């Protein structure tokens, strides 16, 4: 019987407690994308939920200035490569979006969670990743 190592509900409950849960391969020791059942690297089904490192590096970003309904622009979305080897998308907070520049790429960040804004289409999505620049 193949197990689903990390349900979205459990990922969100972890994040609410400040814990970043990923899907880790006991065979090749790599993290796979959160929804994986087979390891993205070696194909093994020996995956289990495991906390990952809460630091990373900004790979790219944008400042959203025309937002979807229910959101106030501007805000920053960034793609971060975590020190545990997986990428994640989140909001870069703690800086003025108008000051965002190419210099952000390569900067180190701390990773945590926050409650999402209410959204009528995704009522069960409750957590979102947040990045903050390390001093």
């Amino acid at each position, binding site marked *: 019987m193949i197990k689903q190592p990390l349900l979205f509900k459990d990922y969100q409950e972890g994040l609410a407690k400040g814990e970043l849960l990923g899907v880790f391969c006991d065979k090749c020791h790599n993290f796979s994308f959160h929804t994986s059942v087979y390891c993205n690297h070696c194909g093994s089904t020996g995956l289990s939920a495991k906390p990952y490192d809460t630091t990373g590096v900004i790979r*790219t970003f944008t400042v959203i200035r025309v937002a979807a309904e229910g959101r106030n622009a501007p805000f920053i979305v960034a793609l971060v490569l975590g020190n545990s080897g997986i990428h994640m998308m989140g909001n870069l907070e703690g800086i003025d979006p108008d000051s965002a520049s190419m210099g952000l790429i390569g900067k180190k960040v701390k990773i945590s969670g926050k409650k999402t804004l209410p959204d009528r289409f995704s009522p069960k999505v409750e957590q979102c990743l947040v990045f903050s620049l390390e001093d």
Partner: protein
Amino acid sequence: MREVAIAGVAMTRFGVSEKTCIEMFCEAACLALEESKLEPKNIEALFLGNCLGDFEEGQAHMAAHVHTAIGLPMGSPALRFENACATATVAIRQAALLVGSGVYDVVLAGGTERVAAMDTPLATRTFAMASHSGYSAPTGITFPGVFAMAAHMYADKYKIDIRELQECMAHVSVKNHFHAAMNPKAQFQKEISVQKVLDSFMVADPLHFLDCCPFSDGASAVVITTKQKALQMTDKPVFIIGTGQAAGGPVINNPDMTRIKPREVAAAQAYKQAGVTPFDIDLCELHDCFTIAEILAIEGLGFYEFGKGYDAAKNGETRLGSKKAVINPSGGLKAKGHPIGATGAAQVTEIVEQLRGLSGKRQVKGAKTGFVDTLGGEFGTVCNLILRSHP
């Protein structure tokens, strides 16, 4: 596999329509049937692309209602396809596969979409639904935002000053508007300047408003059949000589945003089946939903080396009259318009008309082999088709 051909093609004028999705598709379908000398009773299956009818009109299950409106036989099934912006190309590819394998002889495929019926905040929200709802969408990422992140990564990876990249991206928009000015079906039939692009407001840094495709209404329909039957329907059939389709996950699982891997895989399938290389392609309709997307596509499809395609439009190499492959002679998604579920069929319509020599002022001279490239979501689907004219 049997040889597969396109007999008839048609599209509505893209823009803002008072017609419903169903009415727009009927308009295109009737024209495509007429061009193929077919009646509804000859159609063995309907493959209808539609992404967001649920939100645009409160209309799910659209294919069955289109089936009734066109008057197709009850025994000819009607299916709705949804693969984000790649939807109609996927529907056409599936039709080609089933005709090629002998399941059907004549399939009507295409798509319809009425994006402009939604206001901008709702349209922006529904487009973002093609991103992963749990791991991407909660950040408030928008579709311009995804490609904006790709643009920043491109500038960083290839050490190009972001202002220089913005200017080169603006040239993509200017070139596509130049083509659309000659296309009576395009949403924006007027030229713009680089300065106008750079002076337009910022949507998602570094993309300006005029780097972005519009919200559009429109439909397009294509008749797919065997070579033998096509030759009875028209003296100018166009052949589908290669197809490819690949799937990726969310962007965080394909994190080098300058290399859309599903495109490289899908294009390789299509080139291999067709027995051609990028150098054999005379023209290409590709997925320029944002100007950076065209730059990524001309590299991913093999027309340019990675990191070398960014100034192709600025240098005039992708414009009508170029010796290299002409990119988006229709005006592309940027200026022809992007009714997402119909887009792929409209790309096919442009290539078919070009290969028949019917494109008037924007005709690519001597065009024999054309390429269709359509991308869905945050790089989750890419579908490619290679078409060839009748000798």
